[in-house]
């Protein structure tokens, strides 16, 4: 009996020892599996507009992202902090042909079928809009490149982060301040009825009203509008001192061409995209049609010599020009900077889970300085680190150049107001 008890106790001890050993080996094998379970590649999924109204902006943005990927892959991949190693990047990009409906289907496919690690939105608010709810529903973090519409950023949604450009409500703040400083009291605003332009129009109107100025013309038009002749005549009938046309690139081009051929002159004319796609506008509208037009100056026109992530301005421009010469513009910069934000998320996240990526970006917010300036987001994921100064396109010999005219702290040129001929 004693012998049986002894054998039983010995067996128990042996079993416990074996269990402990097993636990130990399990622990160590778990540790080794963390390393071995690192994915062979980090898949980035995005939609882009290879054709259609948004192609001129979307393609350079995609090229900027591809530039970042190629630079990282040349180093062996992007550094993933959770695995303490570099992992090659892979891109899945679907052409949505500038259709929000098509983009919506593709975002779904990228999440559910391709199971991408990183979901990047297409250019602008129109094509980002379908991604916001889809990403939230699937608990996938959306790296929003340039969809700055106010409705995208809500307190209950941690699955979005605006990588570049301020939220639309912030964009026109310097613009409104500039008009108030110039004592402009008669302002005409025509805007596209989409989240991006409508948000800006509402902000400008609110800021002007707060200064006691009610716009003499305030009208939304379909985003697809390309005929502005009659609208310009309606605006002229109100005798404005400033005309703000808030649209996408095709709208701005058509508006400036119509203005040029109408023979109408206003003391101040503002459009959004010449500052982002300056060379394209020089080709499409011509220097004569662009002269004295106001626009937003982006960080593309700022020389950042010191950055703590990625290339500085000079290096970036040289590299982009070499690899994607047709994308040397603000949108190319935004695409590249999106990559840097993705890089920061992967470097600082404790795992590849979507919330971990989001938390990592909250952690680096305010401390990430790139070729696009300081990356800073609020609790809703909206970018608040950038302000877009007011610029004016000024004659420069036989061509034109962009000069920053407001605020004075950022200015490198003096505004010409009223524009000659008005």
């Amino acid at each position: 009996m004693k012998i049986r008890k002894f054998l039983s106790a010995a067996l128990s001890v042996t079993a416990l020892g074996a269990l402990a050993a097993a636990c130990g080996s399990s622990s160590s094998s778990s540790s080794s599996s963390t390393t071995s379970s690192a994915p062979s590649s980090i898949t980035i999924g995005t939609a882009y507009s290879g054709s259609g109204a948004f192609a001129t902006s979307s393609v350079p943005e995609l090229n900027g992202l591809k530039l970042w990927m190629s630079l990282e892959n040349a180093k062996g991949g992007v550094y993933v902090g959770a695995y303490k190693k570099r992992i090659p990047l892979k891109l899945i990009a679907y052409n949505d042909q500038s259709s929000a409906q098509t983009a919506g289907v593709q975002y779904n496919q990228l999440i559910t079928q391709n199971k991408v690690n990183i979901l990047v939105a297409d250019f602008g608010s129109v094509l980002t809009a379908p991604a916001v709810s889809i990403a939230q529903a699937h608990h996938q973090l959306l790296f929003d490149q340039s969809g700055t519409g106010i409705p995208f950023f809500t307190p209950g949604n941690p699955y979005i982060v605006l990588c570049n450009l301020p939220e639309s409500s912030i964009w026109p703040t310097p613009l409104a301040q500039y008009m108030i400083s110039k004592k402009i009291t008669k302002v005409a605003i025509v805007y596209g009825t989409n989240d991006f332009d409508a948000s800006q129009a509402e902000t400008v109107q609110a800021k002007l009203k707060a200064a006691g100025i009610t716009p003499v013309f305030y009208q939304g038009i379909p985003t697809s509008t390309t005929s502005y002749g009659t609208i310009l005549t309606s605006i002229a009938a109100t005798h404005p001192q400033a005309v703000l046309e808030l649209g996408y690139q095709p709208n701005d081009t058509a508006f400036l061409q119509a203005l040029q051929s109408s023979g109408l002159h206003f003391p101040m004319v503002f459009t959004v995209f010449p500052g982002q796609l300056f060379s394209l506008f020089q080709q499409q509208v011509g220097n004569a049609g662009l002269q004295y037009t106001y626009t937003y100056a982006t960080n593309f026109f700022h020389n950042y010599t010191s950055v703590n992530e990625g290339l500085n301005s000079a290096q970036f421009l040289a590299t982009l020009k070499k690899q994607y010469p047709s994308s040397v513009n603000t949108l190319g910069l935004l695409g590249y900077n999106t990559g840097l934000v993705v890089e920061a998320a992967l470097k600082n996240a404790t795992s590849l889970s979507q919330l971990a990526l989001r938390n990592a970006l909250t952690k680096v917010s305010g401390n990430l300085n790139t070729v696009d300036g300081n990356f800073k987001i609020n609790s809703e994921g909206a970018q608040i680190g950038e302000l877009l100064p007011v610029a004016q396109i000024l004659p420069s010999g036989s061509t034109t150049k962009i000069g920053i005219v407001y605020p004075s702290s950022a200015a490198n040129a003096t505004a010409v107001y009223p524009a000659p001929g008005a």
Partner: protein
Amino acid sequence: MLVEYSIVAGVLLGLFYALMAMGLNLVFGVQRIINLAHGDMVMLGGFGAWELYYGYHLNPVVAIVVMIPITVAVGFGLYYLLIPRLKSAVDFETLSLVLFFGVSQVVEALAALGFGNNERSLPVSSIPSHPVNFLGQPYPADWWVAAGVALPLLAIFFLYLYRTRLGRETRAVMADEHEAVSVGIDAARVSAISFGVGLALAAAAGVLAVFVFGGVDPSEGVGITITAFAIIVFGSLGSPLGTVVGSILFGVAYQLAQVYTPSWSNLVPYVLVIGTMLLRPQGLFGRRTRIA
């Protein structure tokens, strides 16, 4: 003042729209085909003008004269490539929709490959650019140029249709192809030429569209086809005169909408189609449907 402006602008642009839609109506009238690639032909006309301007320094108005015979020839060949096989199908009209939808997609994709995705425009100075004063108000010069080019082209088209032997044969085929054949008309040849003329009208409109729409890009075809289709339904399918009147009314309605309800202005083509279908399905010139 704005009402007057809108009406004048609507008439000027209406003449341009008439040129843009006429080819679609002609092809439908003769062959009972809704050419869903019509807008893409307009788009190719725009790119043609761009290439001729920057490649050969050819004035866009002169480019129209150069392009017309070329596009008639291309359309003639395209007809024999596509239509005879299609005509042997049981449901010819429905299948033609599918075929030309495919053609539209292919043309758009090829244009994107060939010309790139960026919208291209011609300098305002490539045509007379000084605003024209009329009834005390300035109108963009390109609207007058568009109307001034569209009007004689439409006049020539009507002369061809009503004052030439080929035009009479075309109208005979439009009225009844079988009867036309029975009196010795070569319906296939007439149809092929009509197809070419339809394409030429579209290409000519495409040159002007670069100025009226502010540029040309590979994806604009679908929107143009929808607008042209709305106009010919409104004016009556198969009626050339209906297309002209419908275009002018469309132009005026669109300009008035831009002044008084800009947010809704893009609904004008769709409201026209739905309104026509509900109130007068045969269109403005309904009694002459399919009879030129």
